[in-house]
């Protein structure tokens, strides 16, 4: 993929905006030069252009996870999990896929990729990674990162992350992302060479801006508020859900105790024996069905977690806006004060305090030449400042426009995804009820 490596100038230039995929787009909407993050039938795929006119589709999957040991930066032995990323290119017409790339990555590399994307695409709601450590666990699930179930769920989460990025109209074109999928060795160095860490806004600076900004865009204020509330409510939901799962597990498991005693009872009965035996059997089946039920519920929890983390990504965009706005406000303030200074010098009135003015008062007037020099300097600074302000303003407005476009895209995605999650959850509950009801009916018929 030919794309200029991101450089400082590109930072604030919004990527060319593509119109979002139209809902009525056909199944294969990759026509022409520009490919959009179009969806396709069958296994998830993203679309990327090799060059501007190619119609190659690729499929991405995180297919395996492997435990590895190695030496870390401090030369100490550590165990970590590596994930196999496979990329397949699908020929447009016959749908056959060919494995084009396959490499191993560990979680920290995913984090690196994401941090890079956060810096270079601050106006985009960057898809989140699956959680680093298992949280919201209920007692049966272990909080251990090496636990196979956790690793499996993480593998799925990482795959999801890659697919989200690949399907994003803007992010999918990023070269570093492409290299992440294709260049195993040296990728880390390549990313670090972009120097993105230096460009990252310091947390402190961002915090400062949040407190001091005077006139952020109203929509961002609302959005910030929304994302805070969303985080709070989803956390609460996940916590309670974990407790619910815990209790439900208890209910099912205690029913299992019935199995043995009904069986023992059936041994002393003549006519009732069969009925009791089948009752005991049903109890055992019932008790063991909880494992599958809760596994399905974990998937639901993972879907909610993704949006919990997405809320943080939303927050990040808001923070960026606040930072830019604050920057703008400071620049404007600075310009205003310089203008005033200039005016005062020119007219001789002193309204603003300046050290020079003070010392002048104390130690004597400055010479007209000195004053002229100063005025000239100020005028230059003012001219520079006005230009800077103009470009900052432009940047700010571009940012708001682009960010808002992505936020709208995100909103649609969120509504759709969460509805899917809820439907799936309801379907799961229905299936569980039907299955259990059938079991009880069968038990009843044996009596």
């Amino acid at each position, binding site marked *: 993929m030919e794309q200029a490596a991101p450089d400082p100038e590109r930072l604030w230039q919004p990527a060319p905006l593509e119109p979002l995929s139209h*809902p009525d787009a056909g199944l294969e909407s990759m026509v022409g030069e520009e490919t959009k*993050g179009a969806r396709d039938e069958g296994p998830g795929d993203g679309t990327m252009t090799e060059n501007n006119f190619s119609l190659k589709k690729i499929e991405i999957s995180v297919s395996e996870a492997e435990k590895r040991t190695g030496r870390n930066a401090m030369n100490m032995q550590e165990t970590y999990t590596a994930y196999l990323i496979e990329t397949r290119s699908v020929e447009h017409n016959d749908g056959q896929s060919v494995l084009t790339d396959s490499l191993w990555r560990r979680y920290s590399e995913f984090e690196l990729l994401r941090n890079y994307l956060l810096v270079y695409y601050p106006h985009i709601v960057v898809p989140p990674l699956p959680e680093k450590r298992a949280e919201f666990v209920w007692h049966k699930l272990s909080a251990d990162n090496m636990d196979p179930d956790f690793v499996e769920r993480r593998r799925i989460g990482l795959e999801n992350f890659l697919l989200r990025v690949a399907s994003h109209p803007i992010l999918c074109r990023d070269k570093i992302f492409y290299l992440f999928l294709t260049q195993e060795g040296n990728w880390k160095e390549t990313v670090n060479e972009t120097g993105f860490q230096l460009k990252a806004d310091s947390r402190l600076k961002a915090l400062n801006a949040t407190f001091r900004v005077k006139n952020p865009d109203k929509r961002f204020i609302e959005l910030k508020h929304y994302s805070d509330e969303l985080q709070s409510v989803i956390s609460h939901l996940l916590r*309670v859900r974990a407790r619910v799962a815990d209790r439900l597990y208890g209910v099912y498991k205690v029913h299992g105790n019935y199995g043995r005693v009904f069986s*023992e009872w059936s041994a002393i009965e003549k006519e009732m024996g069969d009925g009791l035996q089948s009752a005991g059997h049903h109890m055992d089946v019932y008790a063991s069905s909880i494992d599958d039920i809760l596994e399905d519920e974990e998937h639901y929890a993972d879907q909610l977690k993704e949006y919990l983390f997405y809320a943080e990504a939303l927050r990040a965009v808001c923070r960026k806006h606040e930072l830019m706005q604050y920057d703008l406000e400071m620049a404007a303030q600075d310009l205003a004060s310089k203008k005033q200074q200039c005016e005062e010098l020119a007219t001789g009135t002193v309204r603003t305090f300046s050290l020079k003015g003070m010392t002048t008062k104390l130690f004597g007037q400055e010479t007209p030449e000195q004053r002229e020099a100063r005025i000239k300097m100020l005028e230059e600074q003012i001219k520079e400042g006005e230009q800077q302000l103009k470009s900052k303003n432009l940047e700010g407005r571009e940012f708001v426009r682009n960010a808002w476009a992505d936020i709208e895209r995100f909103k649609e995605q969120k509504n759709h995804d969460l509805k899917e999650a809820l439907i799936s959850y309801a379907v799961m509950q229905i*299936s569980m009820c039907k299955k259990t009801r059938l079991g009880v009916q069968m038990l009843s018929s044996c009596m």
Partner: protein
Amino acid sequence: MSGGPPKALQSTGPQSLRDMPHPLAGSSSEEAVGGDSTPSPDLLTARSFGDKDLILPNGGTPAGTASPASSSSLLNRLQLDDDMDGETRDLFVTVDDPKKHVCTMETYITYRITTKSTRVEFDLPEYSVRRRYQDFDWLRNKLEESQPTHLIPPLPEKFVVKGVVDRFSEEFVETRRKALDKFLKRITDHPVLSFNEHFNVFLTAKDLNAHKKQGMALLTRVGESVKHVAGGYKLRNRPLEFAAIGEYLDTFALKLGTIDRIAQRIIKEEIEYLVELREYGPVYSTWSALEGELAEPLEGVSACIGNCSTALEELTDDMTEDFLPVLREYILYSDSMKSVLKKRDQVQAEYETKLEAVALKKEERPKVPADVEKCQDRMECFNADLKADMERWQNNKRQDFRQLLMGMADKNIQYYEKCLMAWESIIPLLQEKQEAKRYPFIGKNQDMQSNGKKYQLFYSSFLILNLPSPTSYKMALI
């Protein structure tokens, strides 16, 4: 009435049982029952065990080959309770209408006992009296005294731990009422017990306390004799069948006890689950308030969970009210039955010992002394009564437990159906507007394969399940 022919009874005049006409018969008892069921003198002499040769008119098995004096009349009069249906029944008793009475000294509950009968032992065709638990307790004691060879049904527990259980709560009173009703119905169904004088008094007397004070001594001949059986004789050979019954009851009570404990634990877990559910549902409501398009679906889920919670609460209540009491009742039953078995052992032991003593003395053969004969009589009557009652008990137990387990199964099915309804009703709500969109996002409709394990989210899950209208779901998503 259970009692020897010569006894003078209070409410009805002295009548030989043999002379009493069948209440439902036209002219003679023989006609009504048919066949040769005239009181056989054989019944008055000792019979051997396992004698199932009695052939009764409708070919059924003997229900109450009970104490000599009464069995004949019973055979004349009654169909067997196994076949008892509405038409042949002549005694109906119901317990209902609990009322609270507040007096200076105490507060208590009375229940209305309604009796309808065509039996001659009852002066009126219908009675309605009020009784309290104490009165039931009195009745049971009297029955145990006067009918020691029979199995007397249990009463619900007398004492309740104050502070833990509210004696006057609706649930407690209703549970007790049901148990008391069952108690009386079991007595009503018993061919011997239902004719007991104390039972009659209990059902009919306006002032039971007056009767209690009179201390009627209305024991059967057998009862009287069994009452005074000396203990302390050693039993040589417990007959197999009674040994088997004893062992059965031991295991039975043990298993029921375990089931009771498990059931209580389940209820406890379900209550804790319910507590969490009650917090879980409303969080969706809170979330719904933040959203626009998702507001309705989330609110729907919240309501759905609320409905499921309510359904679970009902199920748990049912378990407490219907399931546990029956388990406990049968445990109590087993206990009282075991003490009857012990008494039987004592009667047998006395007989055996006395017999042995006689055998050692060479003088009095071959004629067996009257004393020993009386013992034998006693023993054999006891055995017969007990056997008959055991069989009746087994039948009732089968029926009761079948009803109980099926009842619980039904309640469970109802619970799942309520939950099903709740969840199914929100599917259309969630699906609204989904068809319109075809959002180009990836990641959710794929078949993620790894190490052979298929993990399917969302869409594919519809394919696995047999949903009522799968097409409507699938359409939305693809």
